[in-house]
């Protein structure tokens, strides 16, 4: 009984912090429609900045609390700067490009934090006067946690007052409902957006700073937080403050009690709840349909044409080199990299299939890659299957998962759909991580070696062959009547239905196909590495695939190929050359986003066509 009370209070404390971060994200999304991946980084910066500022201020109440507030304000200023320098330039770009940009920020912030504060965990000071604990029904509970529990509702109250009672708040609420209309009324949107970013970022900074006495400050805070906060914001309904509060409460308590009730599936629980909420209420608990969404980024997708012949020949030539040259390369390293590239190309092409022609975003495509990898690996481990049957089973396993998860994901649209894919991917990851008896958990499945005939070189050719055939098959499907119908429902669902196209069915089949091809890539990956770990289906891997597709460009069929090659090559080189590869990669992403909002393939093609017309 006492234990329950204690867990309940712990849950409230984490709910309170979660709400602070989530409120900032939801307010920013409501007004700017940007899904800010970097929100977790702002939270992390808040913690680091608070650590440094508090250390430089005199000890005592003023020093501590002053430091916290200063850190929050500083993060707010950083957020505003981010808006002015980066996001303001890409409001008109497609939604996913904004996402890519914010992910670039995540990478940059990670390495900047590493540069400034180092890799070791930092332990902050305890809050003065709140070091002790209180007695509650004969149990000791930390005083600071109690204060934290109070801060959440206070901030919620202040925010509600701000939004209900001030002119600025009215404008923010109006913009959340219909931003075009607010613009039409002559409100200075720039200022509004920047100030909203300031507020949202400051809230994230505050939440981060407040963690100082609770836990160590480290470099993993950003991604760990952003996933949780995405869940909260989506469950609550994007743009809704009360929704965020309720969802934070729900998720916080779920964490606290989940450990008691289902210790085996704690990691799944949160995402399971998110999946259930989204299946029942597709816009979250308090979410509303958005008005005038179409007007935001209604850039017509270009016609899928055939590539110019010269570019085609260039592609063939490159492929020829890829087939013929490797036997003459010295050492295994080049072969390993080339194999990785072949696998990455297929993985990216499969994601592109649902993102480009399908018009759906997936934040969890790694699930199908990983399920393919685990499928093949577990077959070899438990049934001693040879390589080829195991490889054949990989797309089948991934496809089955695609049938199941896809059924729910493709019914939703936009960010909600993307978040549901993320939820399913996390569920798959948790299963791989926590079902130790079968998957080996964190230790992975080892000894997944290719058949004896498949030397490094032969295996490379196998991977290349699968990758080329798979990518060309996806291309062919995209240009088939099915592919056209898929694009038709993306372009205009109403019109598509009016000529007899079953939009749901088309999306579902596309999802399953994409899952299957990702599964092939995953199966190859398992044998290329000789082992599979839960990282095969974690969030960074999903993000890698997203980066490849977005770098290459969503609108052309060659995009994912170029994107995968560029990303893998760059990544490989950077990791070898510098410890701060994230910083460089992030900066490159930001530059590319600002310079080529069409992606690499689009830019190359436009440059090519421009040259011919000149």
């Amino acid at each position: 009984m006492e234990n329950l009370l204690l867990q309940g209070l712990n849950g409230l404390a984490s709910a309170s912090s979660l709400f602070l971060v989530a409120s900032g994200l939801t307010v920013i999304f409501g007004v700017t429609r940007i899904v800010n991946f970097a929100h977790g980084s702002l939270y992390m910066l808040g913690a680091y900045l608070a650590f440094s500022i508090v250390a430089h201020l005199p000890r005592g109440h003023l020093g501590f609390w002053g430091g916290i507030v200063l850190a929050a304000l500083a993060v707010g200023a950083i957020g505003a700067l981010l808006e002015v320098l980066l996001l303001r330039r890409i409001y008109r770009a497609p939604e996913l490009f904004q996402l890519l940009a914010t992910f670039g920020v995540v990478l940059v912030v990670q390495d900047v934090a590493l540069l400034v504060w180092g890799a070791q965990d930092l332990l902050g000071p305890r809050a003065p006067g709140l070091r002790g604990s209180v007695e509650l029904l004969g149990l000791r509970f930390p005083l600071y946690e109690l204060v934290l529990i109070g801060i959440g509702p206070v901030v919620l109250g202040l925010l509600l007052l701000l939004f209900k009672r001030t002119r600025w708040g009215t404008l923010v609420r109006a913009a959340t409902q219909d931003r075009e209309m607010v613009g039409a009324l002559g409100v200075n949107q720039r200022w509004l957006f920047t100030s909203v970013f300031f507020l949202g970022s400051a809230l994230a900074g505050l939440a981060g700073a407040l963690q100082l006495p609770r836990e160590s400050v480290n470099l993993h805070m950003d991604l760990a937080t952003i996933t949780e906060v995405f869940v909260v914001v989506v469950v609550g309904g994007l743009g809704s403050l009360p929704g965020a509060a309720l969802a934070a409460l729900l998720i916080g308590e779920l964490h606290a009690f989940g450990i008691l009730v289902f210790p085996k599936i704690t990691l799944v629980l949160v995402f399971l709840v998110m999946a259930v909420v989204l299946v029942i209420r597709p816009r979250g608990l308090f979410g509303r349909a958005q008005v005038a969404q179409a007007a935001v980024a209604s850039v017509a997708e270009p016609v899928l044409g055939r590539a110019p012949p010269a570019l085609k020949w260039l592609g063939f030539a490159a492929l020829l080199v890829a087939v013929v040259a490797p036997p003459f390369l010295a050492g295994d390293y080049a072969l390993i990299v080339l194999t990785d590239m072949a696998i990455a190309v297929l993985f990216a092409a499969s994601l592109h299939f649902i993102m480009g022609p399908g018009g759906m975003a997936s934040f969890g495509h790694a699930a199908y890659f990983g399920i393919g990898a685990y499928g093949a690996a577990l077959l070899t481990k438990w049934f001693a299957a040879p390589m080829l049957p195991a490889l054949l089973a990989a797309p089948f396993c991934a496809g089955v998962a695609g049938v199941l998860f896809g059924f729910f994901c493709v019914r939703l649209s936009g960010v909600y759909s993307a978040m549901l894919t993320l939820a399913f991917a996390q569920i798959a990851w948790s299963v791989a991580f926590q079902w130790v008896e079968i998957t080996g958990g964190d230790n992975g499945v080892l000894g997944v070696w290719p058949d004896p005939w498949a030397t490094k070189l032969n295996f490379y050719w196998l991977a290349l062959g699968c990758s080329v055939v798979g990518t060309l098959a996806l291309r062919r499907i995209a240009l088939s009547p099915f592919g056209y119908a898929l694009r038709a429902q993306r372009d205009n669902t109403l019109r598509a239905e009016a000529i007899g196209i079953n939009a749901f069915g088309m999306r579902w089949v596309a999802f399953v196909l994409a899952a299957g091809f990702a599964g092939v890539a995953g199966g190859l990956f398992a044998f290329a590495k000789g082992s599979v770990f839960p990282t095969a289906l974690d969030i960074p891997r999903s993000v890698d695939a997203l980066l490849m597709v977005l770098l290459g460009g969503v609108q052309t069929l060659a995009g994912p190929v170029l994107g995968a090659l560029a990303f893998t090559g760059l990544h490989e080189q950077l990791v070898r050359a510098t410890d701060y590869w994230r910083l460089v990669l992030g900066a490159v992403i930001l530059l590319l986003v600002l310079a080529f909002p069409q992606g690499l393939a689009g830019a190359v093609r436009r440059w090519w066509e421009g040259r011919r017309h000149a």
Partner: protein
Amino acid sequence: MHRFTLEAQGIQKSFGGVRAVDQVSFGVRAGEMLALIGPNGAGKSTCFNLLNGHLRPDGGRVKLLGQDITGLAPRKVWKRGVGRTFQITATFGSMTVRENVQLALQSHRGELGRLWTPSWRLRGGQADTLLERVGLAGQARRPCSVLAYGDLKRVELAIALANNPRLLLMDEPTAGMAPQERVGLMALVAEVARERGMSVLFTEHDMDVVFSHADRVLVLDRGRLIAEGTPDEVRANALVQEVYLGSGFEPEPEAEASAC
């Protein structure tokens, strides 16, 4: 042979207590051009959406060639032989004009499940024939996203004709077009309808279009059908003059924003 291509029997629909369409019954005869008119908010669009499957009626029946199609999804209504165009033109912007029409033809032939045949191999010739019929042969290779509005209307028409419909539903077919273009488009529709023996039901604000192209006219007011007859009969109808034409017989400002 059925007397009516499409028949509405006492259809009704309420939104939060307001009866948008109230016990409306009428029939579209084979091969006729039937206009549905009425002042803003009369329930024209709602009525239309009850017929094409976007809304399910609270009561009443909709029959197509004698078969009950009440509450069927738009997709299925289309499969039964109803083509439609939208008030705000809806085409697929990432495809060329020809591909738009080809896709509709492929869908009609049940070819959308084909994953391996290149789309350009299927129904290209038929698409060209249709495009020629609507006067767009020269635009076939252009992307829909760069077309002029008047041409888009013609693309929509070609798409709508792809399943050889027995009935064509046109919601405000000439909204947003220049006066000369309107006459041209409706003359084309009338011609095609005559050739194919296809019925056309359309809503319209432009009285010139209505009186020069409709064989019969239905008048809605506040969700009720208040008159039905030839253009001359409707013009002479006292009730119609009172509620609708009384205000000086003027076409209203177009693109009624309130009706959705």
